[in-house]
């Protein structure tokens, strides 16, 4: 009674008090972390570049500038006069426009992969961990089996057999991206389901799926978000590798991996910008995600509560 009265005095001037959720606390901690905020700003700039790039680019990404064709090494240099701010590619197409386009695809691949992982992996892992026993055994053995498949090989096979398409790429990425997430979510769920607040819900008579949605998943979300931000770059790398092998996106579409592959092939001709421009975006974005992921991990770390 005394304690509540003390609070009552404190809050005498306010009526319904808004609480500080753990999310709000985490947000404050995150924005105090300079590296993480720097990473976030970089990511926002890259995102902005991908979104508004097409509207400010003087050239289209498919358009061939016939005036530079054949003498790309001299006339295709980055310059403000020709409007090729980042130079051109070996076919005389504007590299700025193509980088914008590649950024769109690479970010999309990363985000779609992480999204599938978050949705499928989290629920799969939470269900397996919550029900435990035989359900858990069967569900996690399936994950083990899927993990033991050399997915790069399978994806290459898929792309060769069904032809290269964005859909195939997303299917391939979707197939593998959620496996690790499912394991992480399951491990966390195993500890969560022994917590007393879950037992309280069980004792009250809350149904199992409601418990998973209301009590398990929100408490998994911290780990899931951190892992998802680290998963985006690994999906981007994954796609880049496939594109580097020449199996990814199809011309005239492109991605960072495809651009880097192209650029590195042209290095001998002294057109170094073709490699450096996409590489810069690739590296900067990966670092951005790593810093943000690190910041989120620190901010959401339950030990700090």
């Amino acid at each position, binding site marked *: 009674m005394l304690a509540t009265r003390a609070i009552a005095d404190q*809050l005498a001037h306010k009526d319904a008090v808004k609480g500080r*959720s*753990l999310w709000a606390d985490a947000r404050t901690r995150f924005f105090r972390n300079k590296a993480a905020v720097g990473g976030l700003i970089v990511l926002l700039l890259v995102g902005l570049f991908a979104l508004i790039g097409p509207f400010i680019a003087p050239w289209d990404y498919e358009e061939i500038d016939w005036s530079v064709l054949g003498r790309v090494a001299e006339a295709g240099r980055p310059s403000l006069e020709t409007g090729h701010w980042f130079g051109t590619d070996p076919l005389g197409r504007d590299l700025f426009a193509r980088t914008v386009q590649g950024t769109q695809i690479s970010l999309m691949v990363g985000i779609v992969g992480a999204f599938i992982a978050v949705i499928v992996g989290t629920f799969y892992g939470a269900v397996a961990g919550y029900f435990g026993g035989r359900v858990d055994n069967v569900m996690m053995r399936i994950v083990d089996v899927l993990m033991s498949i050399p997915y790069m090989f399978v994806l290459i096979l898929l792309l060769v057999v069904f032809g290269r398409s964005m859909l195939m790429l997303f299917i391939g990425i979707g197939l593998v991206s959620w496996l690790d997430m499912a394991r992480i979510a399951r491990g966390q769920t195993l500890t969560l389901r022994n917590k*007393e607040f879950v037992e309280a819900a069980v*004792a009250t*008579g809350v149904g199992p799926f409601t418990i998973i949605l209301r009590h398990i998943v*929100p408490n998994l979300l911290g780990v899931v978000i951190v892992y998802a931000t680290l998963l985006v770059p690994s999906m981007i790398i994954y796609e880049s590798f496939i594109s580097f092998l020449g199996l990814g996106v199809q011309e005239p579409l492109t991605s960072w991996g495809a651009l880097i592959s192209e650029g590195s092939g042209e290095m001998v001709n002294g057109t170094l910008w073709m490699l450096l421009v996409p590489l810069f975006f690739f590296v900067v974005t990966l670092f951005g995600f790593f810093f943000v992921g690190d910041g989120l991990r620190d901010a959401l770390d339950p030990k700090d509560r």
Partner: protein
Amino acid sequence: MSNILMQVENLSVTFGIPRRGGWPWTPPDQLQAVSNASVTLKEGETLGLVGESGSGKSTLARAIVGTVPVSGGRVLWKGKDMVGLSAAETRAHGRHVQMVFQDPLAALNPRMTVGQVVAEPLVTHFPDLSKSEVRDKVGAMMERVGLLPALVNRYPHEFSGGQCQRIGIARALITEPELVVCDEPVSALDVSVQAQVVNLLQDLQRDMGLSLLFIAHDLSVVRHISNRIAVMYLGRIVETAEAGELIANPRHPYTKALIASVPIPSPKAERARHRPVLEGELPSPLAPPSGCVFRTRCPIAQPDCAEVRPELLEVADGHMVACPHHDDAANADQQPAESVN
């Protein structure tokens, strides 16, 4: 104290413990956390359950609220067996039996506001209630347990331990249950707060006509709040009696040791008292002693104690003891004193 609300009959709970380094198909070790326990709870009564750590009190409580599978025996609720109900029926029964936990903060979902926590049983069992009805009921209940209704939007980590326990109590009472199982509800709290929470529970019990199953690991709190007390040792109930009778006239050697370990307020009386101290450790529940499980620490153990498991028998009106030698015990206690004369 009229009708019988709940009867626990020969209840056993066994956990399978996977054997270390065993093959997946090696049968797990069986840990009997509760063994043939029987207790009776009347309407409006408080039953205290005491026993040292690991004696199976929480497991018995969990079996009663239905969060742990029962391996034998019955739990009769107003005469109806609760064991073996379908999952949906067990969930529906949750409205009548609620639980208050030992660790007040761990019992509250950190991602939910206090209002959501308290409302959860209500929206589970009365899904037709409108939002404003739920809000009103939650506000009233928070007020009833001594919390400001204006705090509904706060999160559990913003409260002290005692306040968290009040939130837990509010959640337990919002569906107006008939039985509240309190598993060491004050053990984790500061001593000054303990009394407040115990008083709150007592007030609520009187006002709402609740039955309480109040668990603690020693008698100091339980003796004040309980009408009857059951003493538990290694999964067995070894003695039950009216609270006053049990304290004044304990029969089982384990109960005597428990009472002796509660400090007496006056230092003089404390020093003068003959203290049968309990030696040794609780045996592993994986390999309980044969016969009477207390015999490894019993000051008056006889050779035959290793052979037969003592049954819980009525030795006086409403006083049940599981020790055939409890009468010899009284004599044995007196013998040294007499031989001096």
